[in-house]
């Protein structure tokens, strides 16, 4: 029944009806759900490691939702979905920076909760498959995703990725990337940006997950996930 690679969901919300009915709904969708009214109740009562996913409210009595996210993130890699009535950037930004994977606003329908869980799980696929790195197989001109999916690369794409994978801790400037890939720049970086745009879309299409490339505005590009270059 379930489309997500998780089985145990923990719901923390002081609205007991919401917890009860969401739990029932998730069980219908094949997920086991446990509900808690406060953060303290969750932290005291159970073994956190058994949960694959957490659904949290921000406005909790006692320990606040943002603090709970920080505590959970320190102990587990499980997905964290925040469902809150708070709508300003302050609440949103603090929840994400504390380690939440997704933030959705109330009012929320149960189908949306399930949809959000599925979306977070897709994004978490890297963690679920055991933190495998992205691998660039130079000889076969292939990029292998953490879950084993492969992306075939053109010579220019291979050169771009090779240059980026060479030193993942550094931001590679557009000029350096253009030089490495042999892309002619005629006054602007349009050709390179187009190539990166198409490469990202290709990775997302063929590997079904976000590309490991990140734009560093005003500077260039960088790899922000675990990577490995295989020459043989």
């Amino acid at each position: 029944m379930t489309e997500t690679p998780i089985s145990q969901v923990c719901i923390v919300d002081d609205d007991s009806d919401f917890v009860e009915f969401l739990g029932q709904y998730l069980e219908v969708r094949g997920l086991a759900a446990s509900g808690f009214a406060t953060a303290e109740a969750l932290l005291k009562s159970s073994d956190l490691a058994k949960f694959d996913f957490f659904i949290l409210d921000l406005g909790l009595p006692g320990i606040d939702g943002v603090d709970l996210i920080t505590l959970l993130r320190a102990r587990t890699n499980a997905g964290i979905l925040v469902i809150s009535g708070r709508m300003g950037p302050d609440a949103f930004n603090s929840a994400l920076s504390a380690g939440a994977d997704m933030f959705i606003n109330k009012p929320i329908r149960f189908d949306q909760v399930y949809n959000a869980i599925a979306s977070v799980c897709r994004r978490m696929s890297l963690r679920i498959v055991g933190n495998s790195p992205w691998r660039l197989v130079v000889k076969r001109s292939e990029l292998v995703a953490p879950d084993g999916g492969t992306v075939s690369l053109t010579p220019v794409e291979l050169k771009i990725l090779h240059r980026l994978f060479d030193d993942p801790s550094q931001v590679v400037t557009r000029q350096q990337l253009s030089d490495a890939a042999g892309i002619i720049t005629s006054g602007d970086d349009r050709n390179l940006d187009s190539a990166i745009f198409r490469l990202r879309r290709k990775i997302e299409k063929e590997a079904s997950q976000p590309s490991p490339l990140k734009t560093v505005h005003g500077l260039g590009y960088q790899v922000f996930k675990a990577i490995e270059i295989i020459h043989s």
Partner: protein
Amino acid sequence: MPQSTYLDNLVYVYLGVMGAFAVAQLLQLRPTNRVHIGLWLIASLLSAFGVFFFLNVARISFENFTIFGPLASITGGFLRFFAFSYRRHTFHKSRLARACMWSSLAAIPFIAVPALSPYRLLIGSSIGTLLAAACFFAILHNPIWKSRASAPVAASLIALGITCVAFAARAATAYPFTADQTFIGQSELQKRGLESVVLMTFFMQLAFTAMIVDVRAREDARSDRIAIRIVQRNKRLRKRAQETANVARARLDLVQLLTHEVRQPITNAQASLQSISQKLRYAKNTPNNASFALKSAQSSLDHITLSLSNIIVASTILSHERKWVTDEVDAYAALKMSILDFDQEKQDRIKTTFNENTIYIESVSILLRLILQNIIEFAIKFSEPNSDIDAYLKIDFDREMVVFDIGFLPADTHPLNQDIFERRPSSDTEPSGISSLGLFVVRQIARELGGEVRLLDTVPGRQNFQLALPC
């Protein structure tokens, strides 16, 4: 030749005075006085040339000097007149000064007439008198030389007055009144004349340099005053901006407080209704109209919540104070979530085309959900009843953007155009009943996220909202 040595020494003194003051005047040079100093220096150069010419040629023949020397000196005199008359890109028009200047100009040709050669000293001195008078009136009437520190101007006027009298006296002692036909020569009158020229030159140079220094000091003082005024004005503007920002921040906080305090209970009420709805699903003997009433209540609350969300987000975005952090957002999931915001009846009208590929965009998930919710809401509101709403996602490789495309069949009564994204005052009620806030928020958020929203007539009879966001 003891007499020649005395004249030579006088000329050297004259040239030394010219050179020393030329350096002093150059040191005062700046864009605002370059014309004055430039004209004055050329005049000095011409005068020096005239006298230097005399120094070298005098021993051979005084006759040669009688034409070139006076002409160079008179030209220098005209340039001095222009230096005194100049005033910010133009020459000040004093009637008396101009009358003197034109009279002296009219007399110049007589110097070159051979038949009048014995009268050259008389003609030259008369021209000198008129030019000195022209310079006198030019200084007197040109506002640029007027200042509180009047000593340099007074000195100039005195020097010019004396020069004027000296030239007139020289004219009165020239041929035919005496035997002197040239300005420079061995007679006692000629020697005294040259001495007085050297003396007057010294005073004129001193006075002109002092006038330039005075004008420069006044300009500096004016610049300082302007700079102080600018600083004070900037300070006032900063203070006013700070006050405005404080008021805006206070208003924003109040709006957010108000909307949150209203929105929070409404979302709680919605959650309660959802719980009741769940309970009713498994209950027996439910009144027939209970489900309908529940649906109506939920729909009304959905509407209110959407409006409140729009107000909160609009006030946040318009304040430009609080920024949203972006995150990787699954575009398909965001579109699905927005569709699920509508009740089942509306959801059934929305036809989606999803392929299974994933597209991630750098965005803010709750803002994206809100704008898609607004767009779909408007598409449903202004479409033919029960007609299909198409929702799909595509990649625009040319613009390097992800495009959310919401197509609908517009109702005939309300043709929509690009104006719907404009925000109108709340008092401005459209006959169609369009409240512009939702689409205004859509446009603002799209811009905030680096994209754009458009309403297009892609297929005859259909319209499409296209939200393009960078990825």
